[in-house]
Structures are given as structure tokens and as C-alpha cells.
């Protein structure tokens, strides 16, 4: 069993470090493990699990939220949100770093992907921060850290996947992220403020109230999007996937008839572009089902469960141990793969000691989002480093204080379930 797990996990990690695309690293490690340890198994299970892993109506929400975000971006929403955020918080010391955080918080209500947000907002905000005198490393770091809010404030792609795996209400999961997302934003802004004061970063000007209100009206439609999504789900009008499709329709209508910046040709290009972003994300989901299947066969889940429960049955201690485990997973693994492979192992353990699956979902997703900031598999670091032109090592150094405060937020969410569950409990299942 040990040799099997070493080949599977070690093989995957080794291939990732050697620069093999993640989907093939997971697939090849799984295939080699099957050939060495399960040579009697029919290999037809490989395409079967890869197709079966994505054969889900709930997962269809993912391309819809990608589409809605891209359409809103093309309709000029990102620039409007940045201008509004600048008017709102640009006057504080380190103004543009706060603008970055607030923009990410607002944009999180449209998109549900940290990676997509880091690229969309970063390509706009990082050059702007560098031009204004902020070091490229810091600009990349604050953008990467802020992008982790994307999948916490609803909608959220990892939460949709967690909802499918754990069979819990996606609407409740979405609601569980509202307060933690706001807290993350607040903590990141406070940290950016102290760094800015110490390094004497510039500040802009507060916008006159009337002009701010005018801008607020123009971004009001962006605020409306998450309300439509969550409201529709909770009122039972539509499922999370249908909410995604409605969000696409909503963004198309806004783009064509309100902002009038969207063109039919652009819309077609967005659809074609979304096929690629959907395929590259969801094929990892498919191949992770194969990987997870081998993990399940190796009985490692039971062994980990027994080990954790032998240390303590106290929910707080168990949550701490699970958090440490997922933090390490996040350092080495893609969040979606981490969810698919390890949630089925830990969910029965935590629910058996009375932890609510929605609370657990929020904690795991937040933990894995922090993993996007930690090397060696910290995608947000590489994306923002590429945009800023700064070395990854510098971005890693600059992002450390933000990782520290996000860990504090993670601990708050872990040990204050009432805060996380307040909104989900209001609406029930």
C-alpha cells in the first residue's frame, strides 16, 4: 500500500516539478500505478472515469460563470469597478493596493475563479500600480492575495465542485462565503496599509461624494449579478447551473443594451475562449476522479481517518489537523484536484464528529485558495509574476505577510462556525 501511494503521489509531484502539464502529471502517475499495482484492472476505466467525472449537470455551472465573467469584462465592467474602487478607497495610504482588493471583492460577485480573476484584474491593475511607483513584486503579491477572495464570495467554482462531491446545497455553500470573503478583504487591506505606511507608498485622492455615487450607479449592475444568482437559487427559481446560465444572459443583456460595449463578434470569441478555459480546468476534474479512485482502492482514507481520530475526537483538534493536511495539499496540488481526491476521505470523518459539511466546505476551499499562493504549485504567484515581470522569488517574499493574515482568517472561519453558518442557517436547506 505504501509503495503504491508513494508511486502515485510522488510520481505526480515529480512530474509536476519536471514541468509536465498538471492533467498529464495526474494521468501518467495514475496510469503507472495501475500498471504496476493493479495490472488485472481493465484500462477502459481510464477514459470511463475521465468522462464520468465531468458527466454532471452541476459542473456545467463552471463554464457559465466563466462566460458571465468574461462578458462582463468585455462590456467594460472591470474598468468601471476599478474606477469606483479608486474613488472609494484610493485616498488611503497605499491607495492602489486597496483598490486592487476592493476590485477583487466586487469582481468576485461575478466570477468564481481565483485564477481567472488574477489574470483579468492583474493585467489591468498591476501595470497601473507599477506606473504609480509601487514595486512590481508588491503589486503582483497584493493582486495574487486578493484574487483568492474570488471563489469565497459567491459564486464559486470550487464550491460547486465541493457541493457535487459532498452532496450539499450549493446555495448554502455560496452563502457561507459571504462573511469570510468580506473579512479576507478587510484583513488584506489592513495588512497592505501597514506595509504602505512603513514603505511610504503613494496615496491618491478621495473622490467627491456626488461623483462616487454616479460611479456607484454604473457598477450597481455588477452588484446585482450575485444577488440574482443567490436569490434565484434560494427562492427555488433555479439551480446553481441554471443560475450560471441566467448570469450569462444577464451579462449579455447588460453588455449589449446598457453599456453598449459588447459586440456580437466579441461574444462569439468569448464563447470560443471559454471552451478552452473550461476544457483545461474540467479535464483536471476528470483525471482527478481516476486518481481519487486509486486512492480509494489503496484504503489510505481509512488509515488517515483512524490516525486522526486516534489523536483526538475533539472537533476543534480534528479541524486543526485537517487544516494542516489541506494546507500541505494546497502547496503541492491544484485546488480542484485536491478537493476531488481528498474531500471524500475527510468528509465522513468530520461529519461523524458533528462538523457541518457546509462549514467544512468553506474551510477546505479557503485553505486550498491559500495554497494558490504557496510554492511550488502556487499558480497565482506565477500568473502575477508573469504580468508584473518580477521574479517569482520576489513575489513569494512579498506575498508572505498576506499568506499570514489569510491563515488568520482561515483559523477564524475554522473556529467560529456560527459566523460561517449564519447566512446558510437563515435559509435552511
Amino acid at each position, binding site marked *: 500500500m505504501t509503495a503504491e501511494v508513494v508511486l502515485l503521489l510522488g510520481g505526480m509531484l515529480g*512530474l*509536476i*516539478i*519536471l*514541468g*509536465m*502539464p*498538471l*492533467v*498529464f502529471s495526474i*494521468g*501518467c502517475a495514475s*496510469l503507472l500505478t495501475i500498471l504496476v499495482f493493479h495490472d488485472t484492472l*481493465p*484500462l*477502459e476505466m*481510464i*477514459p*470511463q472515469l*475521465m*468522462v464520468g467525472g*465531468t*458527466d*454532471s*449537470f452541476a*459542473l*456545467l455551472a463552471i*463554464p*457559465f460563470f466563466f*462566460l458571465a465573467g468574461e462578458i462582463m469584462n468585455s462590456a467594460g465592467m472591470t474598468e468601471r469597478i476599478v474606477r469606483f474602487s479608486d474613488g472609494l478607497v484610493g485616498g488611503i495610504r497605499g491607495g492602489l493596493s486597496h483598490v486592487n482588493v476592493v476590485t477583487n471583492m466586487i469582481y468576485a460577485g461575478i466570477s468564481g475563479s481565483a485564477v481567472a480573476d488574477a489574470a483579468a484584474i492583474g493585467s489591468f491593475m498591476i501595470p497601473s500600480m507599477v506606473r504609480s511607483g509601487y514595486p512590481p513584486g508588491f503589486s503582483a503579491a497584493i493582486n495574487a492575495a486578493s484574487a483568492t477572495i474570488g471563489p469565497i464570495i459567491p459564486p464559486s467554482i470550487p464550491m460547486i465542485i465541493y457541493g457535487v462531491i459532498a452532496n450539499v446545497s450549493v446555495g448554502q455553500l455560496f452563502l457561507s462565503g459571504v462573511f469570510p470573503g468580506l473579512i479576507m478583504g478587510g484583513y488584506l487591506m489592513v495588512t497592505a496599509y501597514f506595509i504602505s505606511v512603513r514603505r511610504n507608498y503613494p496615496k491618491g485622492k478621495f473622490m467627491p461624494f456626488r461623483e462616487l455615487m454616479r460611479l456607484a450607479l454604473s457598477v450597481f449592475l455588477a452588484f446585482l449579478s450575485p444577488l440574482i444568482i443567490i436569490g434565484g437559487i434560494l427562492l427555488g*427559481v*433555479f439551480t446553481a*447551473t*441554471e443560475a*450560471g*446560465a*441566467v448570469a*450569462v*444572459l444577464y451579462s449579455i443583456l447588460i453588455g449589449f443594451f446598457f453599456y453598449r460595449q459588447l459586440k456580437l463578434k466579441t461574444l*462569439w470569441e468569448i*464563447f*470560443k475562449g*471559454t*471552451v*478552452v*478555459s*473550461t*476544457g*483545461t480546468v*474540467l*479535464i*483536471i476534474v*476528470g483525471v482527478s476522479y481516476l486518481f481519487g479512485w486509486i486512492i480509494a482502492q489503496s484504503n489510505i482514507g481509512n488509515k488517515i481517518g483512524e490516525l486522526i481520530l486516534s489523536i483526538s475526537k475533539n472537533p476543534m483538534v480534528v479541524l486543526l489537523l485537517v487544516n494542516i493536511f489541506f494546507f500541505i495539499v494546497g502547496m503541492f496540488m*491544484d485546488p480542484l484536484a485536491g478537493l476531488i481526491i481528498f474531500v471524500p476521505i475527510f468528509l465522513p470523518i468530520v461529519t461523524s464528529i458533528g462538523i457541518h459539511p457546509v462549514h467544512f466546505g468553506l474551510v477546505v476551499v479557503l485553505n486550498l485558495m491559500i495554497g494558490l499562493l504557496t510554492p*511550488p*504549485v502556487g*499558480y497565482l504567484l*506565477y500568473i502575477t509574476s508573469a504580468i508584473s515581470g518580477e521574479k*517569482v522569488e520576489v513575489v513569494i517574499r512579498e506575498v508572505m505577510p498576506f499568506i499570514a493574515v489569510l491563515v488568520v482568517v482561515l483559523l477564524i472561519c475554522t473556529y467560529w462556525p456560527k459566523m460561517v453558518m449564519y447566512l446558510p442557517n437563515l435559509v435552511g436547506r
Partner: protein
Amino acid sequence: MENTGGSGGILERVVESAGGVVLAAATLITILQVFFRYVLRIPFIWSEEFTRFLFIWTVWFGAALGIPRGKHMVIKFIRDRLPMPWPLRIKIATDLLALFFLGVVVVKGVSLVQMMSREFYVTFPLSVKYAYLASVVGGILMFFFLGRELRSTLRLMPRKEKKT
């Protein structure tokens, strides 16, 4: 990573358009599903299963296009710090391994399609084998695009000088 044009470029555009049409159809059907159920009170019974079918094809088309577009998630910075020609050697080795994996997906996918030919969707008259066919078509496309990339990498390898 650049689009190399030629037959591969045309193929990319065809796959991209096919994927766009499939995704647009899934989006439209899902919007109509809400409208017909909630506004007209006429629920579709086939729409969920059919959009799932379309979604599988979207994923495999997109995964295939991700190779020439360089959109698959990858950590290259450790490999790229090694002295030349080691990054190229490692890329060739990992590409060959990935091609082996894709070969298994395609060959076993064909076998799976044959096994599933008598299974049908519940709400519309189509064999489930057409969903699994996406892994064969997508796998072949990925194999082609990755093979093309491997050929380009091989051309970059420094050649040994001939002894005179």
C-alpha cells in the same frame, strides 16, 4: 506558444468553432429550460441529460485546444532554470510520457465506445457511446497537438558537431 498555422491552424479553428457551437447550445438550452419551466410552466425532460452530453464534448474540445494554446496548468520555472539542453530533454521525455497516456486513453476509449453501444440515454434516443466518443476524438486531437509540439522541441535540440 504560438499557433503554427498550416493544417494544425485550420484544425484548431475547426475544433474551436465546434466547441463554441456546443457550449452556446448548452447555454441556450439551459436558459430556455428555466424560461419554459418557470414562466411557461412547461418543463423539459430531456434538457439536463442533453446539456450534460454537450458539456462532455465541450470539455474534451477545450482540453485539446489547451495544448496548442499553452493553456494547460503547468509549473515550468524549475525545469527552465536548468542549463541547456536539459529543459529540452526533460520536455521531450515528459511529452513522450504524456503521448503514451493519451495513446492509452484513445485505444481504451475506442474499446469503451464499443462496450457502451447498447446503452442509451433515458430522455432522448441517443447511445451513451457518443458521450464516450468525446474521449476518443479529444484524445486523438490532444495526441496530434502534443505530437506537433514534440516535433518542434526536437528541432530545437542542439545537434552534435560532425567529426572531421
